[in-house]
């Protein structure tokens, strides 16, 4: 038994070392791709490389980025989360209801409510998957529909507008010249990056995703780890919902439809393997920035949205092909 544990531990450590090297190479190549895209757009459009446009680009990438960071945790542990778009709609709605005319609670309530709603639904996902062994695809697909249903029931299909000034500030405010959504995105990134690369919990996530059996044998509570990744993803979806609501100054029942796909795309473009255990948040950060840059750059150039969708799809597929080749 001891021998097995040692072996598993050593395997995990070695895998981890190889992982760090691979991660570095990968992160570096994604940065190159990002820089390449930026150079291309800069040469094609005079407005692309301006400070204001960079602020736009970062602001436009921040909501998808926040979602994608959460989804990275899930995918690293070999799961998938299709429910983030719906969860963000419900969380945004619950938050908006607390800071609208006639019911103006302190902004802190709205923040806690949004994060709490997301975390609770994420926990439900986690429990279904880790406790009852429902496949992640099915559990979160179910949640995608249930959370949307809850949003419609809660809102009676009507938007909630007239949000309080502090709530709007989350979407449109600036601190030291930086838009608040961007600062939130970066803060989430830093916390997420430290969690994944500098804590035992983070290493366990890689271990569970890389080889669940070995992880379990070496004494990791794989169920808890798996479930916690969904809580993180739900929590960040809640945060994303809060920012989205603040940015559009209204909580809409149809908000966030399809956002899970952009989040997953950012993770995949960022080089995180859908088969778990390999990838990094740096990749996801640039994955989200690449999607934002492509949307922004092609809008600037006036490329028809029909071609934009084609190109975005092609980039996702190419990213996965690159991942296969590296394997």
């Amino acid at each position, binding site marked *: 038994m001891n021998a097995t544990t040692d072996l598993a531990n050593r395997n995990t450590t070695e895998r981890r070392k190889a992982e760090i090297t691979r991660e570095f190479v990968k992160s570096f190549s994604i940065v190159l791709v990002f820089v390449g895209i930026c150079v291309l757009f800069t040469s094609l459009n005079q407005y692309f490389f301006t400070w204001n446009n960079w602020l736009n680009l970062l602001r436009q990438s921040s909501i998808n980025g926040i979602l994608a960071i959460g989804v990275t945790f899930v995918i690293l542990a070999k799961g998938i989360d299709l429910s983030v778009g719906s969860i963000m709609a419900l969380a945004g709605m619950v938050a908006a209801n607390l800071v609208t005319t006639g019911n103006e609670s302190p902004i802190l309530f709205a923040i806690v409510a949004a994060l709490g709603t997301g975390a609770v639904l994420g926990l439900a996902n986690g429990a279904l998957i880790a406790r009852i062994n429902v496949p992640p695809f099915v559990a979160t697909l179910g949640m995608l529909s249930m959370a949307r249903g809850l949003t419609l029931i809660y809102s009676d299909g*009507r938007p909630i507008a007239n949000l309080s000034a502090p709530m709007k500030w989350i979407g449109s405010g600036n601190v030291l010249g930086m838009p608040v959504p961007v600062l939130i995105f970066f803060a989430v990134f830093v916390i997420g990056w430290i969690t994944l690369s500098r804590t035992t919990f983070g290493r366990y996530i890689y271990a569970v995703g890389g080889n669940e059996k070995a992880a379990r044998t070496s004494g990791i509570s794989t169920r808890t780890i798996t479930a916690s990744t969904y809580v993180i993803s739900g929590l960040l979806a809640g945060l994303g919902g809060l920012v989205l609501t603040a940015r559009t100054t209204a909580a809409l029942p149809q908000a966030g439809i399809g956002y899970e796909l952009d989040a997953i795309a950012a993770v995949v473009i960022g080089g995180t393997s859908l088969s778990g255990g390999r990838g990094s948040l740096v990749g996801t950060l640039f994955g989200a920035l690449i999607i934002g840059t492509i949307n*922004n750059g092609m809008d600037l150039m006036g490329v028809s949205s029909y071609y934009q969708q084609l190109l975005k799809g092609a980039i996702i597929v190419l990213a996965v092909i690159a991942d296969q080749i590296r394997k």
Partner: protein
Amino acid sequence: MNRRTFIAAIAASTVMLSAGYAAAQEKIRIAALSFGESGEYMKAWSTEIQNHPAVKDGKVEITVFDGKYDPLVQANQIDTAITQQFNAIIMAPFDLEASAPAIDRAAEAKIPVIVSALKTASTNYTSSIIVDDREGGKIIAEEMAKRLPEGGNLVLMEGPIGQSAQIERRAGVDAGLAAHSNLKLLVDKSGNWSRAEGQALMENWLSAYPDQINGVLAENDEMALGAIEALKGAKVDLSKVPVIAIDGIPDAKRAVESGEMAVTLYKYARAEGQGAVDLALRQVIGADFKPQSEVWKDLMEWKDGTQKDYTVPWLILDKDNVKKYM
């Protein structure tokens, strides 16, 4: 092509591109923010904008942005248009409330914003050119009353609840029906502007209210076309159960021509699209500017192009006149 000619070709085309680019800088640049280019009406709208005489002449350059039915995407695109220093912005706002802060930002940046096709909660836009959705709702209710003089039971398919077109059209329908007490609204539900959802709704209603439905009102054509499929599937005589809707999309005009749909209100994409271009050019060029689209000839009054709100009239299409607008 060998490598050398290839490079030469690239170099030549780069020079040509940049030359074209420099020429383009002289043009007036207008951003057209469609709320969703995959929908038939918005596609028609942006096509009309690109067919405006001043665009055809090459004096004006239009960049179409696709809002993808997402208020956040539209907000982002306004920011992009501000950064790009467009001379004017034409916007079809997807959402009444969510479009407001974006329009306020453009106004702050001193870029004229012409709101077209749908309303916004912001008051900082320059001009709006929109059909009167409330009036449209009222007209379809009255057309229904004409076709059911003895009265009867109606069903109503609504747009996405909370969208300005849904709110206004519904208010109009309610006002229209209030004047005819013999018309009773059995049930209403949102079909989200979708043909497939409209069809499913109608199928369910036919089961829930067998032989009780005398007329179908829909807040847009797509849902009505879905309802017609369901009615045909249930072998309902469409000449006895009128289906009446709004928008006048090509499929609906065909259905009116064949007698399957009783009436559709034609929302004239040219008026909302090209009219908006003229209003934008009036802001950019100034008082000397004369509108160039034919829509100002007899459909609408120009009034110097500086009014806050322009109302585009509805055209009522039935079997007798639909051919003219096919």
